[in-house]
C-alpha cells in the first residue's frame, strides 16, 4: 500500500518535471526554429525572459524524481540504468549543454559567441527530451529485464521507444508554445501571441498524431499495455484526447483563455494513463512490482514524509516564484540595463503592482519570523 503511494509520488514528480521542465526544453525547441538573428530576435527574447528565472527550479524535479526512484525501488532503478545506459548518457550530456549554453549565452560577449552558445542550448533542448523519452519508452514497452546488467541497444531503439522519444519532443514544444502565448499576452505583445498560437496549434496536432501513432504501435507490439490503456486507463486517455482537441479548437477560434490549464491537464493525463496502465508493475514484462521491488517500510514512510514536506515548503516557494515571475518582477540584470540605456533607474514598464508589494511584504515577514526564531533560541 505504502509502496503504491510512493509510486504515485514518483509519478507526480515525473509529471511536474514534464509540465515545468519539459516546457523549458520546448522553449529551446522554438528558439532553434526561430530563424535568423533578426527574424528570431523577438521570440528569442520572450523565450529567454520566460525561462531564465524558473528553469533551474523546474530542473530540480528531475533530480528529485531520480532520487525517489533509486531510494524506493533500488533494484529496478539499477536495471533501468544498466539497460538504457546509452540514451541516459546522451540525455545527461544534453542536460549539461542545455543549462550551460543557456546561462553562457546571456553573458557572452559579441553576437558570434551568443550564436554559438544559443545553438548549443537549442540543439540540446531538442535531444535531451528525445533520449529521455526513449528511456521511458524502453521501460513502458517492457524492454528492461529485471536483472539487467548490460546495456542493450535494442531496448530503446524499438519503434515504440523512438515514437515516445518524438512524442516527448512534441509535448515539450506544445507546452512551451502554450505557455508562451500567455507570456506574450501578459506583455501585450500581439504579434508574438499570434506567432506562438500558430506554433501551439501545429505542435498540438503533431503531438496528437504521435500519441495516436504510439497507441497503434502498442496495439501491435505490446498488447498488454494497450489493453490496459483502453481498459482501466481509458478515462485518462479520454481526458488527454478531449483536452488536446479543446486546446486546438480554442486556439483556432481565438479564445486562448484557459488553454494553459487544459494543456497541462492533457499532458498529465497521458503520464498518469501510462502509470495506471502498467500498475502494479514497475518494470512491465517482468515480475518486478511496486510491492516486491520496494525499499523497507521505514524508507518508504520517510519518503512519504519527505514528499509532504516538499509539498508544504517547496509548494508555496514555487508559488511565490511563479507569482513574482508572472508579474515580471524578476528580470535578468544585463538585459534590464540594456533596455534602459539612459539614466538607469527603474527600467521596466510600470510600477510594482499590489502583488509585488504583497510578495515583498511576505519576504519581510519571513525575515522577521526567522529573526524571531533566532532570537528565541538562546533562551531554551
Amino acid at each position, binding site marked *: 500500500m505504502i509502496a503504491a503511494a510512493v509510486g504515485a509520488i514518483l509519478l507526480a514528480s515525473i509529471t511536474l518535471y514534464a509540465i515545468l521542465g519539459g516546457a523549458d526544453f520546448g522553449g529551446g525547441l522554438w*528558439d532553434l526554429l526561430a530563424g535568423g*538573428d*533578426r527574424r528570431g*530576435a*523577438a521570440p*528569442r*527574447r520572450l523565450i*529567454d525572459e520566460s525561462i*531564465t528565472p524558473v528553469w533551474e527550479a523546474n*530542473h*530540480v524535479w528531475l*533530480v*528529485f524524481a531520480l*532520487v*525517489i526512484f*533509486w*531510494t524506493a525501488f*533500488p533494484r529496478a*532503478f*539499477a536495471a*533501468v540504468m544498466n539497460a538504457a*545506459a546509452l540514451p541516459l548518457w546522451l*540525455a*545527461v*550530456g544534453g*542536460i*549539461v*549543454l*542545455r*543549462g*550551460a549554453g543557456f*546561462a*553562457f*549565452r546571456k*553573458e557572452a560577449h*559579441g553576437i558570434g559567441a*551568443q*550564436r554559438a552558445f544559443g545553438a548549443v542550448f537549442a540543439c540540446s533542448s531538442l535531444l535531451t527530451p528525445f533520449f529521455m523519452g526513449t528511456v521511458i519508452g524502453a521501460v513502458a514497452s517492457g524492454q528492461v529485464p529485471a536483472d539487467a546488467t548490460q546495456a542493450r541497444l535494442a531496448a530503446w531503439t524499438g519503434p515504440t521507444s523512438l515514437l515516445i522519444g518524438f512524442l516527448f519532443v512534441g509535448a515539450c514544444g506544445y507546452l512551451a508554445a502554450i505557455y508562451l502565448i500567455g507570456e506574450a499576452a501578459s506583455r501585450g505583445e500581439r*504579434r*508574438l501571441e499570434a506567432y506562438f498560437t500558430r506554433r501551439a496549434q501545429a505542435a498540438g496536432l503533431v503531438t496528437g498524431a504521435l500519441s495516436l501513432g504510439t497507441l497503434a504501435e502498442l496495439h501491435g507490439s505490446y498488447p498488454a499495455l494497450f489493453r490496459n490503456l483502453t481498459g482501466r486507463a481509458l478515462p485518462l486517455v479520454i481526458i488527454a484526447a478531449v483536452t488536446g482537441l479543446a486546446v486546438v479548437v480554442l486556439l483556432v477560434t481565438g479564445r486562448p483563455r484557459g488553454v494553459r490549464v487544459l494543456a497541462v491537464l492533457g499532458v498529465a493525463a497521458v503520464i498518469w494513463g501510462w502509470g495506471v496502465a502498467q500498475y502494479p508493475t514497475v518494470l512491465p514484462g517482468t515480475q518486478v512490482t511496486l510491492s516486491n521491488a520496494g*525499499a*523497507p517500510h*521505514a*524508507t518508504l514512510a520517510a519518503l512519504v514524509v*519527505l514528499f509532504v514536506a*516538499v509539498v508544504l515548503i*517547496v509548494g508555496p*516557494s514555487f508559488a*511565490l*516564484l511563479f507569482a513574482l515571475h508572472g508579474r515580471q518582477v*524578476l*528580470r*535578468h*540584470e*544585463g538585459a534590464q540595463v540594456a533596455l534602459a540605456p539612459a539614466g538607469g533607474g527603474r*527600467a521596466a514598464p510600470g510600477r510594482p503592482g499590489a502583488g509585488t508589494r504583497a510578495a515583498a*511584504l511576505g*519576504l*519581510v515577514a*519571513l525575515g522577521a519570523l526567522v529573526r524571531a526564531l533566532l532570537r528565541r533560541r538562546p533562551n531554551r
Partner: protein
Amino acid sequence: MRLIGVAAVATRVGGEVVPARAQMATTLGFHIILACLGIALPTIVLIAEFIGLRRSDETAMLLARRWSQAMGVLVAVGAVTGTVLSFEMGLLWPGLMSRYGAVLGLPFGIEGLFFFLEAIFTAIYLYGWRRLPGWAHWWSGMPIALSGIFGAMSVIAVNAWMNQPGGFTARGGKIVSVDPWQVYFNHAAYYEMPHMILAAYMVSAFIVAGVYAAGILRGRRDRYHYTGFAIPFVTGAVITPFQIFVGDTAARAIAADQPVKFASMEYVTRTSRDVPEYLGGVYANGHVYAGLRIPGMDSLLVGFGTGTRVIGWDSVPPADRPPVPWLIHLCFDVMVGLGFLLLLAGLWALYVWWRRRRLPRARLFWLLGAVSGVAATAAMECGWVVTEVGRQPWVVYRLQTTAAAATHNGGVLTSLSLVIALYAVLGAATIVILRTLARRWRQGAAPEIAVPYGPPAGDRPAREAAP
C-alpha cells in the same frame, strides 16, 4: 592529481572499475568547486549587501550586485554538473545503488528538498535586484544561504555513511529495515559535515578575495578593490582556525574509526606505540624517502602522548588496504600545509590591523591573497582524495567493494574521454564568461546586446522584428 592516483590504481584492479572511478573523480572534482561556491557564495554576497544596506555603502552594494551576477552563471553550471553526478550514481555504480539505494537514498532526498529551495530563492534573489525593495531582497537571499548549508549536510551525510555505514539491517543480501535518523547522523557525520561546510566557505571566500588581490597587485588600488578583498578575506580568515580545529578532530576520529585510512595518511606501517610523524616523503618498498621524520609525533597527535598505540595497515590483509599510500599521505600533508598557510595570511592581516588599523602593504601579502583561492581549492580537493582513495578498496566501508559496485557495461572509457573533453570546454567557457563579465564591469558599460542571439538593442525596436 586524482587522475594520477587513479592511473596508479589501474595496476591493482582491472575491469570497468578503473575508468568508472576516474570518471567519478573527474566529475566530482569539477562539481565540488561549484558546489562550494553554491553553498557559500550567497552568504558572502549577503554580507556585502547587508553592509551596503546598513551603512548605505554604494561600493559594497555594487559588489553584491556584481557577485550575484557571477553567481548566476556559477549556479547554473553547478546545477547541471550536479545532475551529472546524480545520474552517475546509477550509471557508474549500479551495484551500490541496487544494494544500498534504499539506505543512502534518504539523505539525498532531503538534499532534494533544499536543492528546490536553493534554486527557487536563487532565482528570486538574482533577478529581483531591481524591483524588490532593499531589505525584502536581502531576506529573499536568506533561504539560499540556509538551504546551501542544510543541502551540503545531507550530501555529506551520504559520504559519511559510506565511511561509517550503519542504521540498517540486511538479511540474505537484502536490506530489511532502515533507521533514517541513524543513516543521516552516522558516526562520521559529526566531523565530515562541519569540515566540508567550512571548507566550502573557505574556498568561496578565498576565491573571491583572490580575484581582488590580483586586481590590487595589478595596481587597481581603489576602495572598490579593497572592499572586494576585505569582505571575503575576513570571512575566510575567521573560519580558518575553526576549520583546522575541526580537521584535527576529524583526523583523530579517523584514527579510531577507519584505522587503515589513517595509517595510509600517516605512513603507519605496523601497529605500535611511539609512532613517528612524516612530513612529506614518498613511501615505496617499505621505506619513506625524502620525508621529514618527527619521532613519536604521530602518537602524540592521536592520543596526546608518545605512548599512544596507533593501528597500522598491517592490521588488514594487503587486498584490504588502500592502493596508493603515498598519494593519500601527500594529499593529506598538502591539505594541512595549505590550511596553515591560509591561517598565516589571516594572522598577518590581523597583526597589521591590530598595530596600524589598515591592511598590510607588503607585496608578499597580496601575492598570498591572490593565490589563496587556488590554495583553498587545492586543499579541499586534496581532502577529497584522502577520504575517497583512503577508503579503497571499499565503496561502503567493510561492506561493499568498489569493484562490486561498478557497472558491467563497457564503454566507460569512451564516456570518460568525452566527459574530460566536455568538462575542459565547460571549465574554460565558465572562466571566459566570468572574465567577460569582469571586463564589462571595468568598462562600466551596459552590455551592448540586450537580446540573446539577436541584433544590438536600439538598432530597432525588437517588437517589430516579429514576423
